[in-house]
């Protein structure tokens, strides 16, 4: 881009740092997600009615206390050889109390090499986070942990 164009562009470069109102349940009627779905319905939808089993093979890493509910790191690791005959098909990350219990559905393949997924999610308040894992043999495994969300601080 020419220098001239850059400076012309100055006025229109996207203001990506626009004020982001925090997701909160405070004050007035509780807003509803356009994709509203509670935790149990989400689990049933994903497993097709099968009951998932808590398993130590699924390692869920979330903070016990989240400094900020808008940015909570989540990492799910599953002990799996990730071969064509035995791999993790999907990792679903669910929340206990968000209006839409689903945060992300990740479909892996053996080409991933290892079964792991990490991201950052929004939590509307203290609640349980669950990793729901689907294996290539049709089994569903889970791991859960509660996250305490503190909202506060100055500035």
């Amino acid at each position, binding site marked *: *881009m020419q*220098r001239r164009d*850059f*400076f012309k562009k*100055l006025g229109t*470069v996207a*203001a*990506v*740092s626009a*004020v*982001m109102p*925090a997701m909160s349940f405070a004050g007035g009627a509780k807003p509803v997600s356009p994709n509203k779905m509670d935790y149990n319905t989400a689990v049933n939808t994903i497993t097709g009615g099968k009951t998932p089993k808590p398993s130590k093979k699924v390692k869920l*890493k*979330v*903070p*016990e*206390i989240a*400094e*900020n509910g*808008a*940015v909570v*790191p989540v*990492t799910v690791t599953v002990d799996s050889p990730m071969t064509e005959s035995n791999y993790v098909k999907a990792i679903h990350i669910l929340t206990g109390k968000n209006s839409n219990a689903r945060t992300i559905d990740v479909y892996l393949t053996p080409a991933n090499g290892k079964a792991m997924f990490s991201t*950052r999610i929004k939590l509307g308040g203290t609640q349980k986070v669950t990793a729901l894992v689907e294996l290539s043999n049709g089994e569903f495994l889970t791991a859960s942990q509660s996250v*305490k969300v*503190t*909202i*506060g*601080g*100055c*500035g």
Partner: protein
Amino acid sequence: MKTGIKIALSVAMLASLSYGGEQFAMSDADRAMYAEMSENNPADIMVADGEELLGYMGGDEGLAKYLGVSEDDLPAYIAGFPRYIKKFDMVVGIDQVIQAMMADGGHKPLKLKSGNMFAMVAYVKSIANGEKINIDVTANKQMKEAYALGLKTYMTKRGGRGLSCNSCHAPAVVGRILRTQPLPDLGANGAKAAATWPAYRMTKSSLRTLQRRFQGCMKNALLKVIPLGSKQMVALEVYLTNKAKGAEISIPGLKR
């Protein structure tokens, strides 16, 4: 409001601060997790942006030339900001240097408060990543004055609650909980804040500079906000940066 009442108020407020219960303590595992998060700091994208923007003005080479240093010496030079620059006859921060460079190049300078400016400041400071902060507050008369003004500003009680920066950030109050968060010690020598700002602020989902952070804090403490780039604000930055002298610069930071 009479000064006497102001000070009484602040004492009362501080007395009501409790020491953090375990309920708000973040475990080491939690802290490690947040530290891992900075591996993928959204601000990395903004720093790359800042690099692109500086590129239109000659990049690192152009900046070094403008400052009158060699490109090799640039990282260590950046690690000494805010500095007294003869050309402007003022103690200035990186943002003001960028503005001057833009103006001298015949362009309308970006506002100090703009996202693009923060991105450029972050990129320029990141040139000094790995360097130790080497600000010299005794370098000359102007730096000495700036340091003295910064200290004074930090200690002056003002505003509706009669608070100074020191009211909440002094060693004696460190660790106490205010608005669910433990107060960081900015008064101690070696308080490294300046080495990790500009930083991505999770609560604002954006990249912010240290001075901008001061403004947010002032607002909450009911202190009249000091303008970015003003003599007092630069002085405050000098004072705080000196506290971090010797700390390794790591930009962009990641903060609540």
